[in-house]
């Protein structure tokens, strides 16, 4: 048992429920993502059959709308990115010289949340109808008032996306912490293999972009479940009222969605670019030409991706100056891509090409991306976009970009298949699949450029375009058939494929090819190091010796639990900790001692979350079934989280590692800061939404028209005092813990808890008062649905209140532990909690003036 980190063998089903190992989870991601490819692909084939002739005579109008909408959602969210992150999970730790991700259990939790979010998406089909308003979910068609029937399936889709986004956020925090704290000695950021670098930039974009999406989805879920009115217009007869109290509703969704949505294009495409670069290097035997400029271009694109989103909104009512600015930024973002494309082409020209299956898919992806990129530039020009927006030109363009990305990832599947399985696939079948795939792809998507006048998302089109649609449908089936070849090839090769050694590819140089195929559980036969300029594996003695010689290398390498709080140690000197960590790591390497890395809790937490969300989807109907499910799921989730927190789980930091630029920031602390950076965007998007709808309404008129006189400053001021004082007490708890004053630590933490509870009670009293006022303007009280001002007030301060509640649960747990003697002489756990609590305090420092004074 000890040599397997407490995990059952791979042949056991329980292994796959218990595993926290990055390679196992990578495989789980790959298989699950391929399932969603088939799911989304089948839906696409259904509506392609529908489009053989104009009209909805096969699926019916709602069936067609559901198929189109969920196809987009499944492919964008549940297939492409998770497929890429299957490789990222498997390959990145190997490429950077780490034995796993920084927080293995969190990684497992990400996967299970992803899987259950997909199941919730599937369940939505059985709740009447699923979401049918297009994958962009534009307002107001995304709100219950505009959804036919009860709309419970649509609510489930929104909740499934929230669950998916939670998985992505945890994954982003985990990957960033890993890549900045666990690189092999001597491996600078600029030197890490290009695939890992592409993942690094991808997770940076994910960290911020998905936080904005999470805000949009939480607000939308609130509109669905709580009855807020962010995305709804008032109706004046059969038309939207021009004097509605929320004129910014529709544009707000577009801003939030596309602030996420455009970086999402690169979030999808960057890993594919990384795969292409790896394959081009390996199969041309040539280092990437202009590697430095390739990397700089990727960094530029990652930054620019956040300032181009309004080119998706040229046809909305935004003003001309902002359109012009965003046209310029959009054209600008194509320039770094030009450089990357030329780099790949020149690498090919300078090297000696071997046309293996992974290379063919990579080359195919490049060709398709060039077509997709050029046709996209048309859409970046305002005047052309007026004509092309909402047509099949857009559909063809983004499939040439997004599915080009998927094409490269299929190349990646062939490329790393021997590493993952230890078997070689059938090369001939691989090439045949590529041929069929490439033919099917172009027959499917290219006619859409010709039939570009077909309106997007509509099943009716002019008769003259039928031939092109028929060709596209035939192409779709050919493309689908190519996957049967791939699945057959990869499945049969598991048994019949030739055994491969560590490196089946000549000229592949990254670290994953230096170990056996598949790699052992602990990845490397020693601690990886590039200190001498080439990859070496250090033995136990060398690690300890080197660590003692340069204790700073591991002075911050204290062991920490994975789940939110650091282990409580006694007073240890930095040197002793350094040596202890080095020994621990060395033992891990030699296999003398292995911590148990099996955990069932990530699965249970996610299952609980799934039941909760499914219950929440029907709460607004008042159904006892749904209410019970929401309550039971909530209890199961919280119980599982407590179980996960109490479970001993040991994931020590590496004894020696390259950690620029976070050398002095322990991994728990870095993880917390990274999470908080994402939370800043979440709250920023909530506050930004408030500012946007208030500007749309009229900033100064807002207060007079929409807010009752009973909404006064004093409750907010009292809560400001309470939170500031509680923050002060947290730092005093740290001081007391440092001084080993148990009484002081307990008193300060208990005081923090009491003040937090006071904050919530005060807020509860204030809300209750406002709910029940009866004035001339607000005769039925001022509740969540009264107007847009009340919606923004309750939801934004409610989100903050939820953060306070989570903080209080952690604070209560820590108070009990402090009472039992924890934290004395080691205040790190209190510091990490404090980072969160002070952040909650900072948010309130802005909510107070915005919602109580101004």
């Amino acid at each position, binding site marked *: 048992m000890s040599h397997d980190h407490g995990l059952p063998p791979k042949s056991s089903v329980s292994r796959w429920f218990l595993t926290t190992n990055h390679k196992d989870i990578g495989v789980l991601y790959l298989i699950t993502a391929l399932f969603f490819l088939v799911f989304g692909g089948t839906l696409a084939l259904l509506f392609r059959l529908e489009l053989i002739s104009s009209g909805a005579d096969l699926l019916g109008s709602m069936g067609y709308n559901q198929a189109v909408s969920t196809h987009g959602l499944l492919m964008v969210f549940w297939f492409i990115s998770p497929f890429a992150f299957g490789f990222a999970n498997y390959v990145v730790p190997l490429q950077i010289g780490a034995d796993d991700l920084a927080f293995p259990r969190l990684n497992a939790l990400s996967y299970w949340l992803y899987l259950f979010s997909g199941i919730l998406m599937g369940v939505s089909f059985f709740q009447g109808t699923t979401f049918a308003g297009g994958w962009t979910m534009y307002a107001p068609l995304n709100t219950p008032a505009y959804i036919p029937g009860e709309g419970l399936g649509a609510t489930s889709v929104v909740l499934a996306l929230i669950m998916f986004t939670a998985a992505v956020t945890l994954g982003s925090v985990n990957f960033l912490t890993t890549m900045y704290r666990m690189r092999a000695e001597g491996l600078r950021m600029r030197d890490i293999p290009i695939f890992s670098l592409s993942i690094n930039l991808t997770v940076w974009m994910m960290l911020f972009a998905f936080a904005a999406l999470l805000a949009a989805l939480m607000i939308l879920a609130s509109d669905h479940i709580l009855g807020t009115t962010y995305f709804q217009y008032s109706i004046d007869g059969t038309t939207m009222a021009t004097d509605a109290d929320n004129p910014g509703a529709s544009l707000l969704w577009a801003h939030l969605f596309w602030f996420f949505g455009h970086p999402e294009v690169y979030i999808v495409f960057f890993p594919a670019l990384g795969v292409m670069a790896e394959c081009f290097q390996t199969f041309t035997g040539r280092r990437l030409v202009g590697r430095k400029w390739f990397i700089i271009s990727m960094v530029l694109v990652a930054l620019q991706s*956040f300032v181009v989103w309004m080119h998706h909104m040229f046809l909305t009512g935004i003003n001309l100056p902002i359109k012009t600015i965003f046209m310029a930024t959009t054209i600008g973002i194509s320039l770094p891509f030009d450089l990357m494309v030329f780099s790949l082409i020149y690498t090919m020209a300078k090297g000696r090409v071997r046309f293996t299956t992974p290379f063919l898919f990579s080359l195919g992806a490049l060709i398709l991306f060039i077509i997709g990129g050029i046709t996209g530039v048309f859409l970046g020009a305002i005047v052309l976009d007026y004509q092309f927006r909402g047509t099949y030109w857009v559909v063809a363009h983004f499939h040439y970009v997004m599915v080009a990305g998927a094409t490269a990832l299929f190349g990646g599947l062939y490329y790393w298949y021997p590493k993952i399985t230890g078997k070689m696939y059938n090369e001939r079948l691989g090439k045949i699949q590529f041929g069929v795939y490439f033919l099917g792809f172009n027959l499917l998507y290219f006619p859409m450029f010709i039939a570009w006048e077909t309106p997007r998302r509509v099943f009716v089109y002019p008769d003259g375009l039928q031939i092109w649609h028929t060709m596209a449908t035939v192409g779709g089936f050919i493309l689908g058939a190519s996957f049967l070849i791939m699945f057959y090839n990869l499945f049969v090769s598991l048994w019949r494929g030739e055994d491969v050694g560590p490196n089946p590819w000549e000229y592949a140089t990254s670290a994953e090819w230096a170990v056996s195929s598949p790699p052992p559980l602990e990845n490397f036969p020693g601690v990886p190091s590039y200190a001498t300029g080439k990859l070496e594996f250090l033995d136990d003695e060398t690690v300890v010796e080197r660590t003692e010689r340069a204790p700073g290398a591991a002075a911050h390498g204290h062991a920490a639990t994975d789940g939110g709080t650091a282990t409580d140690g006694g007073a240890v000197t930095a040197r002793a900790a350094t040596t202890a960590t080095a020994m621990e790591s060395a033992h891990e390497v030699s296999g003398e001692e292995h911590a148990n890395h099996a955990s069932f809790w990530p699965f249970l937490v996610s299952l609980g979350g799934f039941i909760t969300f499914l219950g929440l989807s029907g709460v607004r109907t008042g159904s006892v079934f749904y209410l019970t499910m929401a309550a039971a799921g909530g209890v199961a989730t919280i119980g599982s989280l407590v179980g996960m927190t109490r479970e001993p789980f040991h994931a020590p930091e590496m004894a020696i590692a390259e950690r620029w630029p976070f050398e002095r920031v322990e991994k728990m602390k870095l993880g917390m800061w990274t999470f908080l950076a994402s939370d*800043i965007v979440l709250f920023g998007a909530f*506050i930004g939404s408030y500012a946007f709808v208030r500007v749309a309404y009229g900033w100064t008129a807002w207060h007079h028209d929409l807010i009752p006189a009973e909404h006064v400053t004093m409750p907010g001021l009292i809560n*400001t005092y309470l939170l500031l004082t509680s923050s002060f007490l947290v730092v005093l708890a740290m001081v007391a813990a440092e001084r080993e004053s148990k009484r002081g630590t307990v008193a300060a933490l208990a005081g923090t808890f009491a003040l937090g509870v006071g904050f919530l009670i005060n807020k509860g009293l204030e809300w209750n008062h406002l709910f029940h006022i009866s004035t001339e303007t607000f005769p039925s009280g001022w509740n969540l649905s009264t107007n847009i001002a009340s919606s923004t007030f309750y939801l934004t301060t409610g989100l903050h209140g939820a953060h306070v509640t989570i903080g209080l649960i952690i604070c209560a747990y820590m108070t009990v532990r402090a009472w039992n003697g924890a934290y004395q002489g080691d205040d790190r756990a209190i510091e990490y909690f*404090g980072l969160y609590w002070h952040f909650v305090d900072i948010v309130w420092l802005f909510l107070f003036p915005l919602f109580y004074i101004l």
Partner: protein
Amino acid sequence: MDWKGYTAIYVVLFTFATAQAVVEFAGLVDSAYWAAFALIMVLSVVKAVGVAAYYQHLRWEPRAVTYLVLGGTVAALALTGAAAYSIL
């Protein structure tokens, strides 16, 4: 930082919060809205920077952590600012 330093920061934060409310109680929000707006928001920013720098110890962390926080802040401000400007 010792408890005296933390206490001094707390006193400043408490005073600034009170000052924000005083701006409203004094009627400045009604008589000179945008001046009051600027004053109150500046006070909030100063308080937030104080909490981050001293209670969250950003002052003593590597600059990279500050850049990480600024990254999130700039993204949120870009979204808010550009979106609001787009409908002016």
